[in-house]
């Protein structure tokens, strides 16, 4: 087994592009679920809207990438409004089902042949829509060390991405510690009590949905830019569920939880996958037990099992506080 290679792959993933995407998606969910108690299962829809909003305008309409970012944020606000108007008056489990349905609507429209000319059908969109971003890259040679390895483009995404994560986390920290943030938490704990104080709960929930959704669409920007392509099937329900895993792993209603959660999540996934892969290729693990192509499946099985066990034995996550967040306040 090549342990150095395993370590290099694992550490690169821990700090890598996927960790950034999941951290951002989970920060958005933290706003929804952690602070406001909204069970949004449609986060993948926000990511998809963000990703398509940067790819489509640049490729099809020759609009500047920077304008496309603004379009993406605008679109995610519209999507949040559309989602919020019918659902925010519903009980938590209704909200979950409606948001998951809305995200599926987005994905199925994106992959349909009917809109292929615009959205690329099930193949998605691949093209050089992020060149304006990568032209600014001062680190074109990338980074190669024994324990970390990024290509030139990846390094640029990773550096700007983590700066973005830090900025957004800071803004979140300011927001949730403001009087506004305390109203949010109060809504999570007891909606009726907040209402009786004369607050418009519906409006506050809508604000939460929009803010978290916009952060989700920013995760979609990073997803699209880093790969220079958008594939509709990457934005399925599994994406939302793994973003929840990241959030719960770190500890919901903690500002830093999504970052820590995303790093640990990708550390574990890639580490286990690499060890299994090395084990299979060097015949430590026999062929009849696990084939090379089955390593990815084992990884998903472990992710599912991990989510179950985490929820059963440590629902407050690593840093969460059980008193801060009784996960059943809204049930």
């Amino acid at each position, binding site marked *: 087994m090549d342990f150095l290679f395993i370590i290099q792959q694992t550490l690169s993933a821990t700090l890598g592009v996927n960790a950034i995407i999941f951290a951002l998606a989970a920060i958005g969910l933290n706003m929804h679920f952690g602070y406001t108690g909204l069970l949004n299962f449609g986060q993948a829809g926000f990511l998809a809207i963000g990703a398509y909003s940067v790819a489509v305008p640049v490729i099809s309409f020759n609009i500047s990438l920077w304008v496309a970012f603004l379009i993406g944020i605008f679109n995610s606000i519209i999507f949040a409004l559309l989602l919020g108007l019918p659902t925010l008056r519903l009980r938590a*489990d*209704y909200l979950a089902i*409606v948001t998951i349905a809305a995200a599926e609507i987005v*994905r199925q429209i994106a992959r349909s042949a009917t809109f292929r000319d615009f959205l690329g059908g099930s193949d998605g969109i691949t093209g050089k829509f992020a060149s304006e971003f990568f032209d600014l890259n001062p680190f074109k040679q990338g980074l190669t060390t024994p324990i970390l390895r990024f290509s030139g483009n990846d390094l640029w995404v990773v550096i700007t991405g983590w700066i973005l994560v830090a900025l957004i986390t800071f803004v979140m920290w300011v927001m949730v510690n403001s009087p506004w943030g305390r109203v949010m938490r109060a809504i999570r704990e007891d909606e009726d009590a907040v209402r009786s104080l004369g607050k418009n709960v519906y409006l506050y929930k809508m604000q939460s949905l929009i803010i978290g959704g916009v952060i989700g669409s920013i995760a979609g920007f990073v997803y699209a830019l880093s790969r220079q392509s958008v594939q509709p099937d990457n934005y399925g329900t599994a994406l939302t*569920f793994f973003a929840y895993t990241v959030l719960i792993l770190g500890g919901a209603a903690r500002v830093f939880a999504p970052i820590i959660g995303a790093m640990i999540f990708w550390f574990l996934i890639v580490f286990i996958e690499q060890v299994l892969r090395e084990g299979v290729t060097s015949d430590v693990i026999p062929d009849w037990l696990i084939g090379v192509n089955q390593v990815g499946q084992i990884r998903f099985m472990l992710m599912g099992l991990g989510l179950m066990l985490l*929820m*059963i034995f440590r629902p407050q996550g690593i840093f969460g506080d059980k008193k801060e967040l009784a996960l059943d306040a809204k049930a």
Partner: protein
Amino acid sequence: MHPHHIALITDLERDLNFAIKKISARLILSSIAMLSATAGISLIATPAHAAETPTKLYGIVTGSTEQPLEGVGISIAGPDGFNAEVITDALGAWEVLIPTKGTYSATINEGDLPEGQALTDPTKATVKANVFMPGVELRLLFPIGPGVKKATLLERSVQLTVDGLILGLIIALAALGLNLIFGTTGLTNFAHGEILTFAGLLTYYLSAIVKLPVIAAAPIAVVLSAFISGFLQDRYLWKPLRKRGTGLIAMLVVSIGFAIFLRYFFLFLFGGDTRQLPQYAGQAGLELGLVNITPKSILTTAIGIGFIVFATLWLLRTRMGKASRAVADNPALASASGIDVQKVIQAVWILGAALAGYAGVIVTLNQGVSFLMGQDMLLLIFAAVTLGGLGTANGALVGSLIIGLFVQLSTLFIPTELKYVGALVVLILILIVRPQGILGRKERIG
């Protein structure tokens, strides 16, 4: 992540019939849209044995009852301004020799088709052929059926209504169990779809590997589903969690993790293909008036209705059924009045898993089984349950029939690939008007 293929039971089943019979007479009216998917694949490449074999495009034009159609004009256009016109002979056959490789398109002259015959998909008047090497023979097919273009809206509507009712029944079988479990335990079970997949896989295993006849494999799969997915799952997963006092949202998240685990476990054991049962896979349909329906659909639907009647009687008439409604209403009060709540929940799980298992068997019979089958059905099941009102048994039935009918009938107006989108949009629209669902109780909204 994985590619996500949603396929509809009845359409896919026909699609299969279609592939087996090649272009056949009885192309059912409603499968027009599916044809656009198949016609693209209907180029059957026959590699040449030797280089002297000429490169050619050929085909046989047959009508709605497989009778050859003579005198139909076909024009071929290709690269470098290649152009040719042929007319089908007495056997309906035509062929054109082509000079080079490239992309050719063959257009059928629709005006030459005899009375009562028409393309089942008007967009397939032109079929493309990609000749990737010299010396190959490519067979091109034009989908022709019984004057479909003139098919009345009524005829299509009737067929789609029947398809919709069958889909609604399948959803109802799964939704009833989901709703009973939700009603008695409060669990929103995201792993319910995997009960369908598991029963489907069992049916496949018992019939294709153990070599039992399907007619024996199916009931065994349902019984095993009730025992493993119902009794054992509740006994060793959910009952301990209830005892620990795990909250409802925490259990919801646990069910998501369980669903992901099971799905990839099935993929690990079974692989990613869709497998057909050894029997009845390509059964031909029967013409009953305006409707085309396969015998297996008639039988499975009849049994399914029987199951639903049984479940309803169980709920309304038996002591245990009445107790389950009492538990759904107020578990503490039910417990205080001497009802063994855990026993009721166990019964509900067993019944729910049996019903969902049977739904999985029907889907497997009609369109084959893959590890994604349950996931594909889950959203429709949820949509049905939410539409009817979470936790209400009749609501699940009403919601299922509405979703089933809507999914199918919407294809009259929107592309087939978007029919699930239509159903989900309707779900959201109805919830704006009636947030508690059609038969739900108003007090329960937040």
